[in-house]
C-alpha cells in the first residue's frame, strides 16, 4: 500500500539521518510525555511505532509544528533541537493527507476513508487530545443533522462549501466527521474563536436557520472540552518541567551532557 511505503520511507530517512538519536529523543518526548536519555530504553521502541503515535497525537501538520515548537523551547539546547524539529517536520509533512492534496491535487472518485492511512485512533493515551471522539460525535448527532455539522466544520477549516460544486461534495465524502471535528478544535484555539467561526459560517450557508441550529449544537457539544484541553496542555508543560527528576543517569555518548538538560518554563 502506498501509505505504508511512504511511512517506511519516512522512518528510513529519519533513522539514517546524522541526528537520528536526537530525532528519536524528541519524538519519544512528545509521544510519551517524558524525556528519555537511556539509549537502551530508546532502542527498545521502534521508530516506526513512535512516528505512528506522533501522527495520531498530532492530527494536522500545524498541530505537529506546534507540539515540536513548544517542546524545543523548553530544552536547554533549543537551537540544536530546533534544527532536529525541522527535520522531523519536513519528513512528517509527507504523512499528512492535506499536504499531499496540495502537491498532487488528487481527487479520489471513490471515497475511501483517508484516515486508514493513520494508525487507528488509540484514544486512551493521547497526550494532547483531551476528549473522547465517540462521546463528542454522539453529542452532536443527538442534537443536529450530522451532515450539516460536517458542512459547518468543513467550511471553517477549508472554504465555504459550494453546493453547486461536485468536487466539494466529493471532497466532503472523503472527510470523516471525527477528523473534521479534530481539525476544528485545532483551528479554533479558544471557545470564543469557535463561536465566532460557527456563527459566521452559518450566516453564509443556505438555509441559514438550519445551519444556525447545527452551529448551536456543535458549539454546545464542543464547549465543555475546551476546559479539558487547557488542563491537558498544562499537564504537558508540567511533564517538561518535571522530567529533570526522572533522569536515569545513563550516559549518552553522542549527546554528551544532555542528561543535565535544564528546562525553562516557556
Amino acid at each position, binding site marked *: 500500500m502506498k501509505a505504508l511505503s511512504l511511512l517506511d520511507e519516512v522512518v528510513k530517512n529519519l533513522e539514517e539521518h546524522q541526528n537520528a538519536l536526537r530525532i528519536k529523543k524528541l519524538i519519544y518526548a512528545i509521544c510519551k510525555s517524558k524525556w528519555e536519555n537511556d539509549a537502551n530504553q530508546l532502542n527498545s521502541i521502534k521508530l516506526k*511505532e513512535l512516528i505512528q503515535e506522533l501522527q495520531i497525537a498530532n492530527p494536522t501538520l500545524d498541530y505537529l509544528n506546534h507540539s515540536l515548537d513548544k517542546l524545543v523551547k523548553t530544552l536547554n539546547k533549543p537551537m540544536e533541537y530546533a534544527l532536529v524539529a525541522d527535520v522531523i517536520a519536513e519528513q512528517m509533512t509527507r504523512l499528512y493527507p492535506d499536504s499531499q492534496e496540495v502537491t498532487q491535487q488528487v481527487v479520489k472518485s471513490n471515497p475511501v476513508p483517508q484516515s486508514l492511512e493513520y494508525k487507528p485512533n488509540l484514544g486512551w493515551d493521547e497526550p494532547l487530545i483531551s476528549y473522547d471522539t465517540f462521546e463528542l460525535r*454522539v453529542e452532536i*448527532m443527538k442534537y443536529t443533522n450530522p*451532515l450539516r455539522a460536517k458542512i459547518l466544520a468543513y467550511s471553517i477549516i477549508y472554504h465555504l462549501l459550494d453546493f453547486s460544486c461536485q468536487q466539494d461534495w466529493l471532497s466532503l465524502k472523503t472527510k470523516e466527521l471525527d477528523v473534521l471535528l479534530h481539525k476544528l478544535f485545532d483551528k479554533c484555539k479558544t471557545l470564543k474563536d469557535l463561536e465566532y467561526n460557527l456563527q459566521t459560517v452559518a450566516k453564509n450557508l443556505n438555509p441559514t436557520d438550519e445551519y444556525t441550529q447545527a452551529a448551536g449544537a456543535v458549539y454546545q457539544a464542543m464547549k465543555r472540552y475546551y476546559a479539558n484541553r487547557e488542563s491537558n496542555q498544562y499537564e504537558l508543560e508540567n511533564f517538561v518541567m518535571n522530567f529533570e527528576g526522572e533522569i536515569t543517569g545513563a550516559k549518552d555518548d553522542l549527546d554528551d551532557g544532555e542528561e543535565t538538560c535544564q528546562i525553562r518554563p516557556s
Partner: protein
Amino acid sequence: MNPNELLKRYAAGETQFVGINLRAVNLFNADLIGITLKGADLNGANLIFSYLSRADLRKANLIRAKLDGAILNQANLTAANLHNADLHGASLKGADLRSADITLANLLDANLMDADLRGTNLSGANLTGACLRGANFREEKRIYTANLIGANLHKADLRGANLTGANLAKVDLSGANLTEATLREADLSGANLAGAKLGNSYLNDANLSGANLAGAYMRNTKLERANLTDADLTNVDLRDSLLTDAKMSKAKMSRANLSRTRLIKVDLSRVDLREANLSEAELIEAYLARADFSGANLRKANLARAELSSANLMGAELAGATMPDGTTHE
C-alpha cells in the same frame, strides 16, 4: 407524479401516496414528515436534506436514492430497498430497518442510534464513523442477525451493541468503539480490530483467529475459550482480562500489557511475548512451548504447573514469580 404536485397535495393535507412512481424526482430539502410512501418507486430520487421523519417507506424502492443528510428518524423502512443508496450523514435515529436491503449503501457518519437492524443485509455497506449505539442487530431466540459481511465499520460507534454470533469475518472494525459490546461466539476471524476500543466487552467463545488487534484497548474483557490463534496482539492492553482456556498459539503479543490477566490453561505455544508486561498474571497450567518471553516482565506472575521447558526466558524479569514447581523465584 411530478414533485411539485406531490408537494402541493402534501401541503393541502394529503399524506397517503402508496405505490406512486417518483423515480429520479428532485425532492431536495422537501418537508414530507409523516408521509406514506409505502411501496413507492423512489429509485435514484434526490432526497438530500429531506425531512422524512416518521415516514412510512415500507417496501419502497430507494435503490441509488440520494439521501445525504436526510432526516429519517423513526421512519418505517422495513423491507425497503436501499441498495447503493447514499445516506451520508443521514439521521435514522430509531428507524425501523428490519429486513431492509442496505447492501453497498453509504452510511458514512450516519446516525443509526436505536435503529432496528434485525435481519437487514448490510453487506458491503460503508458504516465508517456511523453511530450505532443502542441499535438492535439480533433477536435473542431466533437466528435473525444482521448480515455485515464485507461491511466497513471503521471508527463506527457500537458501544454496548449485541452482536452475539454475528459473522464479522474479515470486517474492518479498526478504531471502532466496541466498549461493553457483546460479541460472544462471533466470527471475527481475520477481522481488522486495530486500535479498537473493546474494554469490558464479552468475547467468550469468539473466533479471533488471525485477527488484527494491534494497539487495541481490551482492558477487563472476557475472552474465555476464545480462539486467538495467529492473532496480532502487539501493544494490546489486556490488563485484568479473563482468558481461561483460550487458544493463543502463535499469537504476536510483543509489548502487550497483560498485567493481572488470567491466562489459566491457555495454549500460548510459539507466542511472541517479547517485552510484554505479564506482572502478576496468572499462567497456571498454561502451555508455553517455544513461547518467546525475552525481555518480558513476569514479576509476581503465577506459573504453577505451566509447561515452560522450551520457552525463551532470556532477559525476562521473574522476581517474585511462582515457578512451575511451586517455588518462588528470587
